[in-house]
């Protein structure tokens, strides 16, 4: 008989509560108090920082305050996101020994590929894009991240059902000209949602079902709906008491000036290339880069893939990384050369 894992749905909640549950369930799994668990969750409007990020560097805090958008810090890594009722969250709490592998990148891949299969069964072609995105035709539809504690891990993802791109641009400090038509178009080229792709808003229960089925198949288990237990609720109350305090959000504070948003527009014989980047100045590392402009590349998704490959890359390493990317990607650049992307980034930084 299949092993049985638990599935819970904690419904629509403020970010602090959702994050307190992250810690509570991860600790409870590590302590052996709960079985492997799949949790579905939803958020009231929230701006969520990655664990090691600074609110000042990642968010438009004035806009968040004026629009009752709760700012919170996740316990998982990765970048800041805007999360509201139009998205569904999914999380797995697992004991590492049940996976038979301790390599974190492989664990991410396995979970993301299963999630992508589940999403695809709704009628879109979702794929895992390293390191931690699930995308449809180069556009991100689900971002993911993880945390571990001893022999337990939690891996979580978002799924964009409908999505307000303009709101995202207002909330996040990202390298795009704010709220220009171009920025919104650029963002739409990078972010997808199920409603736009399918032409209708899929039923949340159906989405939960396909994700559960995909994880069940991947891990050879069946899911049984369950309720939160007393030990989890005790841990949750303790975690919430810490997470609702300002000290939790302020534990990492870095000035926005240390992560400038830089831009360069370069005219090459093959076309116009604009590089917009968020740059970690003290570490001299690219946090995020967006390329746009007037040039030809096929397939179109190449640009999004290149942007994903350049996340967190030290400036000193961009030349070999970009060369390696194009050596591997089956892309037709026609007019531009890989070196042009290097030159545009360097010009933006200098």
């Amino acid at each position: 008989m299949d092993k049985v894992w638990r599935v819970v749905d904690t419904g629509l909640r403020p970010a602090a509560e959702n994050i307190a549950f992250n810690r509570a369930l991860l600790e409870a799994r590590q302590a052996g108090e709960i079985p492997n668990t799949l949790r579905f969750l939803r958020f009231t409007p929230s701006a969520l920082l990655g664990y090691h990020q600074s609110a000042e560097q990642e968010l438009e805090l004035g806009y968040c305050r004026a629009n009752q958008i709760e700012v919170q810090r996740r316990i998982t890594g990765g970048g800041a996101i805007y999360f509201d009722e139009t998205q569904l969250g999914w999380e797995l709490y697992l004991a590492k020994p049940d996976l038979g592998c301790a390599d974190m990148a492989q664990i991410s891949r396995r979970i993301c590929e299963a999630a992508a299969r589940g999403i695809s069964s709704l009628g879109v072609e979702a794929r895992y894009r390293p390191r931690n995105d699930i995308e449809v035709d180069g556009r991100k539809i689900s971002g993911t991240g993880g945390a571990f504690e001893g022999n337990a891990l939690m891996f979580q993802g978002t799924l964009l059902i409908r999505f307000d791109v303009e709101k995202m641009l207002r909330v996040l400090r990202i390298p795009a000209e704010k709220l220009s038509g171009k920025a919104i178009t650029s963002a739409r080229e990078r972010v997808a949602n199920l409603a736009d792709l399918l032409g209708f808003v899929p039923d949340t229960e159906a989405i939960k079902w396909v994700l559960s089925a995909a994880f069940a198949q991947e891990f050879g288990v069946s899911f049984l709906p369950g309720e939160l237990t007393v030990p989890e609720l005790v841990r949750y109350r303790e975690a919430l008491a810490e997470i609702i305090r300002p000290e939790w959000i302020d534990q990492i504070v870095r000035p926005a000036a240390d992560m400038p948003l830089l831009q360069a527009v370069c005219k090459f014989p093959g076309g116009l290339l604009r590089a917009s980047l968020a740059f970690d100045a003290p570490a001299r590392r690219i946090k995020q880069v967006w390329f746009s402009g007037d040039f030809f590349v096929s397939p179109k998704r190449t640009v999004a893939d290149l942007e994903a490959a350049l996340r967190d890359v030290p400036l000193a390493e961009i030349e070999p990384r970009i060369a390696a990317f194009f050596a591997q990607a089956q892309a037709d650049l026609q007019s531009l050369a890989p070196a042009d992307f290097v030159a545009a980034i360097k010009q933006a930084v200098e």
Partner: protein
Amino acid sequence: MALVRGCNFPDDLYYDVEDNVWARLEADGNIAIGMTSQGCALSGEIVAWTAKKVGRVVDQHKSTGTVESGKWVGPVKAPVGGEIVAVNEAAVAIPSTINADPYGAGWLLKLKPADWERDAPALLSGAAAAEAFEAKMQAEGFAGCA
């Protein structure tokens, strides 16, 4: 130096095999700690290291801070209990130093041990450490350090 599945484990260090951390007894009695080469290989490229503050007292096997790699966040456990007396700010500023030189420039922090004699028996070194790492790698299906 022991070499286990391509991962090196210097002989002069003490290892907490389960938590994949090392400890080095310094001349001044403090303990330098860091991640092992296998820990770095399992994590992949480290993009953040945030230590607890100098002055904080940490129990053995409890978290001294967190590392992030490939969007995973996890604790670095203290191989011995003690007070944090120094943090490697160079590794905070350029976390990839930890992958590049885990036993040297990529050390994480220093502890003033609460009771080295009490905590040290939980750690392994030399051939015993190598044997324990091999058994752990076997159990985890770990292919090897690149």
